[in-house]
């Protein structure tokens, strides 16, 4: 009899935020990501170092401890390529601690796009390039092969599953959204419709979000959540089932939920409680797929993400500014690639990171719920303004390179 297990998966990522790049910089300065003021939320170095102190260092220390204490403890991580780049530059010790985790053999790295982009929806060539770039970066840094794929923001549909199947991944991750699951439980391994060899793991969003979103919320009726109570909930959820997929942002620990909420102690205690029961264990994403056969097929013809109550792409592509911004970027693809200019190509790719369009989301603004707007910019319009000024500079650089074509505004 297989043990029942938690599949803990954490996603670590930091974008290269665009500075207050003015139209008067366009055509003159090409340093889009270096905010000269250190003490702003747009200064990537400052943000990375801050989050390293609050989250990456203490959380990795805790994970190392848990791995040393409990031989059954396992987890999976996705770490975006541009996270690794920033860690190499500003916090190499953080990257070393991730390496030590992976070296235990009980921490799996999940594949994704290098630039945390939505390229799958715009250009398969570019998308595949970014997946490959990420795989080789992971190989270079950690010496391991990735086998399971997650797309940016867990944006998933049937054609992505087919792509991942053909590409050779053994598994893929998605949101366990009720309208898709209907009467079914997310606590099993599934097979995506129309695929041959790939398995699907679906996030148990209730138990995941209890920790990721609600843990420190004093207005939540369950606050304060104890390790015992949470352990009871997970045990109840998994009765007669195989796995519980707890997927969340890595930064849940220490950044979204600050240390003073007790999140670290809570999680450490919870892992101990869970493993007190000998029928309980942890699986990596590959481990769960190896251990359990799919119980059925799941189809998602439309794109589902792990965001907001809508679980769609509206936080990234819900308004015209966001759609236009990405349209401008991907329309340049061919011209950018044939420059063979590594800096220009790298800048262009950094601008594909989904966070840029997320900052342009207006749905909270017009709903009056401004407090839900997490952004280093004053408004979605400012985010768009600086981005469009950068787009123009890219066009200007292209124009200079090719000596052809217009600037198109």
């Amino acid at each position, binding site marked *: 009899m297989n043990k029942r297990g938690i599949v803990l998966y954490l996603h670590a990522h930091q974008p290269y935020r665009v500075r207050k790049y003015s139209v008067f910089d366009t055509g003159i300065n090409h340093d889009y990501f270096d905010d000269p003021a250190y003490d702003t939320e747009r200064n990537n170095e400052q943000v990375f170092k801050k989050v390293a102190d609050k989250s990456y260092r203490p959380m990795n220390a805790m994970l190392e401890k848990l791995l040393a204490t409990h031989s059954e403890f396992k987890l999976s991580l996705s770490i975006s390529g541009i996270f690794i780049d920033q860690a190499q530059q500003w916090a190499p010790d953080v990257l070393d601690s991730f390496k030590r985790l992976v070296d235990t053999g009980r921490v799996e790295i999940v594949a994704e796009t290098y630039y945390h982009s939505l390229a799958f929806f715009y250009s398969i060539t570019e998308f595949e390039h970014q997946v490959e770039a990420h795989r080789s970066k992971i190989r270079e840094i950690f010496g391991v092969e990735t086998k399971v794929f997650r797309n940016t923001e867990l944006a998933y549909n049937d054609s992505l599953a087919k792509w991942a199947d053909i590409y050779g991944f053994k598994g893929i991750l998605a949101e366990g959204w009720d309208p898709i699951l209907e009467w079914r439980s997310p606590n099993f391994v599934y097979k995506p419709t129309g695929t041959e060899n790939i398995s699907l793991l679906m996030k148990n969003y209730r138990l995941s979000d209890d920790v990721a979103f609600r843990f420190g919320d004093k207005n939540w009726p369950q606050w304060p959540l104890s390790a015992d109570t949470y352990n009871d909930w997970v045990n109840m959820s998994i009765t007669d089932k195989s796995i519980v997929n707890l997927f969340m942002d890595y930064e849940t620990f220490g950044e979204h939920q600050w240390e003073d909420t007790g999140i670290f102690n809570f999680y450490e205690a919870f892992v101990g409680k869970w493993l007190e029961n000998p029928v309980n264990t942890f699986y990596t994403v590959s481990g769960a797929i190896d251990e359990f056969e799919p119980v059925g097929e799941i189809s998602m013809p439309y794109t589902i993400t792990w965001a907001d109550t809508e679980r769609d792409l509206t936080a990234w592509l819900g308004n015209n500014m966001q759609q236009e911004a990405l349209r401008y970027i991907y329309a340049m693809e061919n011209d950018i690639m044939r420059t063979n200019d590594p800096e220009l190509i790298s800048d262009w790719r950094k601008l594909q990171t989904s966070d840029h369009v997320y900052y342009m989301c207006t749905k909270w*603004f017009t709903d009056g719920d401004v407090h839900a707007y997490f952004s280093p910019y004053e408004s979605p319009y400012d985010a768009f303004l600086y981005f*469009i000024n950068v787009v123009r500079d890219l066009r200007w650089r292209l124009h200079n390179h090719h000596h052809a074509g217009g600037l198109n505004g």
Partner: protein
Amino acid sequence: MLGWELPPHNSGGLGVACYHMSKALAISGANVDFVVPYEAEHTGIDFMKIHSATSLSPLERYGLGAYDSGTVIEKSLNEADIDDLKDMRGVQKRYVKFVEKLAVSLKPDVIHAHDWLTMEAGMRAKELTSAPLIVHVHATEFDRSGNENGNPLVHEIEYQGLIMADRIIAVSGITKKIIIEKYGIPADKIEIVHNAIDVTDFDDGYQYDLRTYKYLEALKSEGYTIISTITRFTIQKGLDNLIKAAAKACSKYDKLAFLLVGDGEQRDDLIRLAADLGISDKIFFTGFIRGKQWRDAYSVADAFVMSSVSEPFGLTALEAAHHGNAIILTRQSGVGEVLNSVFRYDFWDVDLLADQIIGIATSDVLKNALQDDVRKEYAKLSWHDVAEKFMNIYMSMCRVGIA
């Protein structure tokens, strides 16, 4: 209700705010007696009783320049000649005397005084009737003068009024902060009640007339973007920075025209500044306009800039939003507290304003997003909600009825 002007005899936002507030209060069941310092027809106002404190015509009152304290005011009320109606203080003395008599005969439940112009009358009425006094601050002398100075006597009157008031209403957080910091009034005595906009008021069959600004329309058809502002041309409004930003923006992107609607003591300086910067042909001065021409000025524009150094509220931004403009506000404008879908800049930040103007002019998607989103927002503001807040404040101050 002690006021200084009501439409159509108003020179600015104070009269508009007083009109809508009184109307919404009357609908909520309040009996409003409104005192103005002049005598004139107010067609369409049947929801309250208007009392004229003098027999001056509204135009004569404008001549006093009272609204923005442009004239020098030095006399205390005791020194003022009540018969000298060419003198600001003379008119105010007459106003106070009138209110004294009226208060004794009406016995109001609450006295609601608007700005320094009526504060002395409010204080006297409170003394005579023991009714609670609400001082409603639409602007302080600090806002009007645009700097630290200003008229010491006006400061003194404001200070007295704020001290004597039982409750102070500020039209924005910015104004509340000034009252706390510059006048030393405790924060818990001050409540913020933002102004609103009555969209039905604009619903009078108005249709934009393309011919009013024919030249600007021709520029638009050639791809120009029209940036407007509608305001009094005083230091407080920060228009010199707007012109500097216009020049900066034009240096990068040429297809811009700026429509400056209004008049004031700064006008000649602004014309000179535009010439010095070599953009005279980009700036259009209309002078002071009303009615259809005024509304058409909103309609012809793509974006509206409120460049104020200090703006307690700024109703024109809501009017511009209603007419489909993208809105750019200084962070020093109170109306920004009720709008999210706008660009903001610090009044001195000419570079950022220029950047924002070019952004709007060169990106339809940005322009349309700003225009559409702010439209959804301003429509949620209502004078009815404002009146409800006032009714609660009145009720908390007196046991029975409202007057």
